[in-house]
């Protein structure tokens, strides 16, 4: 058992913090709210130059190959600053999956591009379905490739990406493809989401995908989408860890200064204890997230650990964001004060790629299977 954070990882985290802080003061963040795609291309360039986009990309493709755990550390820092940097869809869901399941040619073509700042995103969710291994989106084999039809939702950076990684069902066989959002048959419709950011619905109508843009088929495709699900959930947990830690600390300092009845409100136990409860929650989220991330990092089975982490993620997000806003009073919901942005981001993540109720149900079914099999 070893909880040591490697020195190189600590320096990655420090470097990331420095860069992200430079790009995430309140005025800068405002520019990406609402009707704007939440993507700061200057920040992305700076991250590329610092080598931070290639943490989980092999060296020959321009990365530093520090692995998945290091990448989750970056996700945590992005969460902590709420910076407009789409690390989860681009670096985890898309690049991470390509790295592990793509053909050599695709890896050669896209991983170095991503490390250099190009955008490849992923579309993992559909209406009522957050499991990309069982998509309603369908595919037909055509000459030289596949024709894909269906709808994906809440896709980050769909209109900026050079390719979008997604899955489809081809007569009971799964395929994972890279779609060109400019291809014929692709319709992007803007969707404003809780996080107060613009995402897209992608409607695909017989979109032709050439064979060389197919990432995986059959059992490999299922493995790829299971990996993508687990890695994405874990990265979301890491982002949540940063977000919640920041919300709690903002709340700790605000309540230490805000006075009512002639004293700092933090000196009321009912206030300080609520923040202390956030501390306990966040400690739990940190531990289960680290467990999931280190298992994925080592290529070990991680499904149960990831499910547990994402359940904590949803619960902690809910409690910490609610407590933070409550302890701020009106200030917490004022759009000129930074807290609201963290709360909205947290709720977005809470609802993405499996929520607490759904995953608890799933975990319970697995427990029942395990014990019925043994009885």
């Amino acid at each position, binding site marked *: 058992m070893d909880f040591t954070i490697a020195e190189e990882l600590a320096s990655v985290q420090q470097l990331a913090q420095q860069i992200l802080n430079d790009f995430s003061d309140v005025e800068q963040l405002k520019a990406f709210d609402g009707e704007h795609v939440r993507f700061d291309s200057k920040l992305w360039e700076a991250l590329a130059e610092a080598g931070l986009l290639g943490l989980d990309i092999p060296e020959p493709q321009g990365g530093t190959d520090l692995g998945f755990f290091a990448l989750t550390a970056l996700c945590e820092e992005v969460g902590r600053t709420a910076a407009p940097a789409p690390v989860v869809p681009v670096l985890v869901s898309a690049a991470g999956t390509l790295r592990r399941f793509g053909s050599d040619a695709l890896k050669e073509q896209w991983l170095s591009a991503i490390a250099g700042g190009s955008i490849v995103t992923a579309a993992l969710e559909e209406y009522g379905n957050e499991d990309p291994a069982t998509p309603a989106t369908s595919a037909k084999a055509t000459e030289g490739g596949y024709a894909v039809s269906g709808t994906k939702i809440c896709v980050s950076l769909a209109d900026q990406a050079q390719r979008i990684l997604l899955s489809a069902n081809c007569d009971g066989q799964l395929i994972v493809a890279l779609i060109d959002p400019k291809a014929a048959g692709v319709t992007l419709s803007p969707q404003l989401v809780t996080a107060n950011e613009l995402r897209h619905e992608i409607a695909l109508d017989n979109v032709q995908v050439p064979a060389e843009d197919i990432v995986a088929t059959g059992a490999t495709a299922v493995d790829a989408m299971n990996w993508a699900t687990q890695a994405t959930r874990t990265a979301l947990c890491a982002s949540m860890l940063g977000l919640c830690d920041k919300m709690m600390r903002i709340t700790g300092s605000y309540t230490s200064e805000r006075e009512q009845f002639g004293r700092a409100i933090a000196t009321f136990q009912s206030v300080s204890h609520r923040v202390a409860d956030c501390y*306990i929650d966040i400690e739990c989220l940190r531990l*289960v997230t680290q467990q999931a991330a280190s298992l994925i990092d080592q290529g070990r089975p991680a499904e149960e650990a990831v499910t547990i982490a994402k359940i904590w993620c949803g619960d902690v997000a809910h409690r910490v964001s609610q407590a933070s806003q409550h302890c701020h009073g009106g200030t917490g919901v004022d759009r000129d004060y930074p807290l609201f942005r963290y709360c909205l981001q947290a709720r977005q993540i809470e609802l993405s790629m499996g929520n607490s109720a759904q995953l608890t149900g799933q975990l319970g079914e697995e427990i029942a299977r395990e014990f019925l099999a043994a009885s």
Partner: protein
Amino acid sequence: MNIELTAAQKALQTEVREYMKTVMTPELLEEMKDDDLKEGGGPEFRKQYARMGADGWIGLSWPKDLGGKELSHIEQYIFTDEVIRSGFAYPFLTTEAVAPVLAKNANDEVREEVVGGVKRGEVTIAIGYSEPNAGTDLASLRTKAERDGDDWVINGQKMWTSLANYADYVWLAARTDPDPDKKHKGLTMFLVPTDTPGYSCTPVRTLGARTNATYYEDVRISDKYRVGEINGGWKLITSQLNVERLSLFTHGQVHSLYESVAEWAAETKAPSGGKVIEQSWVQHNLARVKVGLEALKIMCWNQAWMMDQGPLDMAKASTAKVYGSEFFVELYRLLLECMGGAGSIAAHSPGAILQGKLEFRWRVGSILTFGGGTNEVQRDIIAMAGLWMPRTR
């Protein structure tokens, strides 16, 4: 980062688990049916405790010059976890919390007598801090000790002195400076042999096991039984309480309850046909338990690991106390709900599920959130030490 037990740690875990099966003899299980002997004290308990001493299991993490093995906190935790899981009434507070403090601070002769005795599994020590008017606010305790030549004369009353009914000594906090301005600075620690004239003990019945009130009427003990500096007791109390925390909320004991309930639910028929575990609300409760257990396990491991790296962060120690205690209580409820009304049948009554173990745990569980330092005080500590918030008034 690799949050798993190493092969050697797993081997230790298995070894202790197997060993403890030989400690939990049928005679001991029979003896523990007596409410007063549930938490130790009977002849079979004494026999097995001494056997653990003879087999070298007591004091794994103590320094070598005390006869310990100087194992890491992680290994100590693995041991503690397995012992608690086995259900043996191992006197942890004696072995893990008080004995090391005595080893450091007691007079040589007493050290040999008491620490040596603990090592051999022959000595148990009760903790005498709380009083009728001093629970959370320990600094306000009033039992007093006065110097008389080479001796001390002790007068007062302690409340909730658990295990005093069979303990060989009481680890007693007494006031040696009556100046009210010196609340924390006027306390001194003593070891009172329970056969000293003037000492007495009466039972206090709680929702579960027995605890005691202890009385000190002109109890005269030699100065050799004073531990540490005169008026320097507070430091010893707090360092003892810190060590105590990691053995209170171990993962194994509640994990085994979870497994037992899930096994029971997989074997037992549900009214709607199928098995109890096939009902979605049962699955929901089991899943909630599992989610909480996983965090508890890693938190315990993490804290043991941190103790090996240096002193444990105060806010983190309090986090484990609050999380552990509140999760235990929640877990008892979630698991009991799976059993329905039959879950309320107490041990030894016909129909008791899992020998009424969970029913008992849940009933006595209410002590967890205030015993060993109330959760309010722990939250105060977290806010101050973990978040730099101002002290509450």
